């Protein structure tokens, strides 16, 4: 189903491309040895090279190159064995050199693709145009001082990958799916932590609209959107804005805009009267980057199983639905957790426990898979206790709640709290007799046709047995005893 915005005079299609800036996971910066960690005191992670002091020179961090190649391979993209670092020249206080070292005409990675798992079960391919490496800029603080802007260069020079999609995205939903899939892939690869709140992944959103079948119209770029939700909202808001412009007879100017989530609108950036002319040219302090084929091959050998492949395998080998498999593989940690639980056990049961109870518990306790109070091993053991009859499903839920609270192994908790389920028919019969005896009037009512009272008896038996009676047995035995 395509996303169409209803204008006053017909339906419009949104055309969206995303440029994602992903901070490369590395200890040091792209061209200097300063650290990259988030949150340090201002200008304490700055080398003289980052500060553009006179006479300073860049030296390329080899690990960042490997991370970019790794990412390109993960995006099924072409690796360019010859790429060039170029200077992008402009003035801004958080750009101390007056230029950013980037890649323009010859990026390290070419065309690739990202698969979206649509809600209806279909897949849609979004093309990747290119990926290149570049330096991040520092930070300008405009609100610390009334008359001054303060500059912190800690971030200046940190390695970024700019991942440019083709304008294949057609709806806010697709944009959201694209970003989530991209983030998932980057996290699997270990090349970017995808943390949009901390700014290690940011998106520039290119939006234009058109009537179905038309050629592309002018696009606007919404810069630095830092959450998936805002990306989706900004697309909707901007598409509508452009449609209004067209429908009132105007033309859309190509410009850079900012998304204001508070007001739910995009605003033109009130800057430069003149258009930027970046005067790209190859950085003469560096040489062309040449990669040997076996360098790329060695990296390819170390790629982990990626989300799409893992999802397909989960469907195939564990019989999961594509939806369930899709949910489990978003995070490698979740996928690994599931597999540990599912190994040698009923995979559907494992999937339900992980996706339902475990994810629910993580949500309510504010924890992640990595900091889960219940380990995969223990959850697996819990499932074993159900399978061997020690616990009923209901009891297992009680034990699980205790596991969340105390972090102990299920068998330990069962022993400590005496939570084994009762399967002794004799014992259950005894409880049933007791309940029936204490509720003779209700027995009579049931026998005279009030079937609904069955639930009452079940509840009483369970209560009398502190929930430990095997529900299946309770059902069978109650039925036969009540039948008389």
């Amino acid at each position, binding site marked *: 189903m395509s996303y169409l915005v209803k204008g006053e005079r017909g339906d419009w299609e949104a055309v969206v491309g995303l440029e994602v800036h992903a901070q490369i996971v*590395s*200890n*040091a910066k792209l061209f*200097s*040895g*300063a*650290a990259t960690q988030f949150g*340090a*005191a*201002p*200008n*304490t*992670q*700055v*080398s*003289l*090279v*980052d*500060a553009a002091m006179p006479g300073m020179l860049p*030296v*390329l*961090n*080899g*690990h*960042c*190159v490997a991370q970019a190649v790794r990412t390109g391979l993960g995006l099924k993209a072409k690796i360019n064995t010859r790429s*060039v670092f170029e200077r992008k020249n402009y*003035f801004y*206080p958080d750009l101390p050199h007056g230029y950013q070292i980037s890649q323009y005409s010859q990026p390290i990675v070419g065309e690739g693709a990202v698969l979206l798992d649509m809600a209806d079960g279909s897949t849609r391919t979004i093309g990747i145009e290119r990926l290149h490496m570049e330096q991040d800029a520092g930070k*300008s*603080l*405009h609100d*610390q*001082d*009334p*008359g*001054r*802007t*303060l*500059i*912190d*260069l800690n971030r200046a020079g940190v390695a970024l990958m700019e991942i440019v999609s083709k304008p294949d995205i057609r709806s806010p939903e697709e944009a959201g799916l694209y970003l989530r899939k991209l983030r998932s892939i980057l996290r699997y690869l270990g090349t970017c932590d995808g943390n949009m709140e901390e700014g290690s992944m940011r998106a520039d959103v290119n939006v234009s609209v058109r009537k179905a079948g038309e050629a592309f119209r002018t696009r606007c770029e919404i810069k630095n959107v830092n959450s998936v939700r805002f990306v989706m909202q900004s697309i909707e808001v901007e598409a509508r804005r452009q449609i209004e412009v067209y429908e009132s007879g105007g033309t859309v100017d190509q410009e850079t805009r*900012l998304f204001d989530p508070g007001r739910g609108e995009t605003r033109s*950036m*009130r*800057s430069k009267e*003149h258009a930027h*002319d970046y*005067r790209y040219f*190859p950085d003469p302090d*560096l*040489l*062309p*980057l*040449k990669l040997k084929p076996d360098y790329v091959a060695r990296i390819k050998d170390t790629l982990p199983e990626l989300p799409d492949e893992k999802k397909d395998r989960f469907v195939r080998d564990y019989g999961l639905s594509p939806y369930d498999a899709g949910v489990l593989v978003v995070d490698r940690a979740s996928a690994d957790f599931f597999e540990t639980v599912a190994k040698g056990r009923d995979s559907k049961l494992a999937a339900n426990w992980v996706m339902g109870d475990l994810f629910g518990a993580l949500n309510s306790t504010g924890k992640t898979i990595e900091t889960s109070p219940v380990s995969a091993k223990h959850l697996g053991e819990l499932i074993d206790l159900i399978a061997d009859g020690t616990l009923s499903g209901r009891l297992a839920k009680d034990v699980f709640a205790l596991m969340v609270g105390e972090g102990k192994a299920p068998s330990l908790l069962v022993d400590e709290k005496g939570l084994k389920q009762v399967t002794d028919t004799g014992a259950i019969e005894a409880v049933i007799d007791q309940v029936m005896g204490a509720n003779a009037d209700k027995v009579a009512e049931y026998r005279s046709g009030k079937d609904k009272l069955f639930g009452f008896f079940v509840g009483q038996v369970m209560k009398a047995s502190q929930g430990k009676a095997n529900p299946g047995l309770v059902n069978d035995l109650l039925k036969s005893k009540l039948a008389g």
Partner: protein
Amino acid sequence: MSLDKATVRKIAYLARIRVPDDALDGLARELNHIIGWVEQLNEVDTTGVEPMASVVDITLPKRADEVSDGGIAGEVLKNAPEPVVAPGADGGFFAVPKVVE
């Protein structure tokens, strides 16, 4: 290709160099003279010639991914015309006239 006053003004802005209005004509003349002189390169046939990619015939060296620098906020800020450092604080800022985004 001749530079007029408007082009010189635009280039001076790109380069962030203030040129007083009354100096634009003289500057345009000088720049035109230089550009006119370098344009003799058009006489050279460069079909099929690759632009020089590097003067020195070596491969691009790479560094290990180690933190070997930084932690020198004092040095970095030492020559700043307007450093902003709170007493006892770790690190500090450069300051410039307020930028409106």
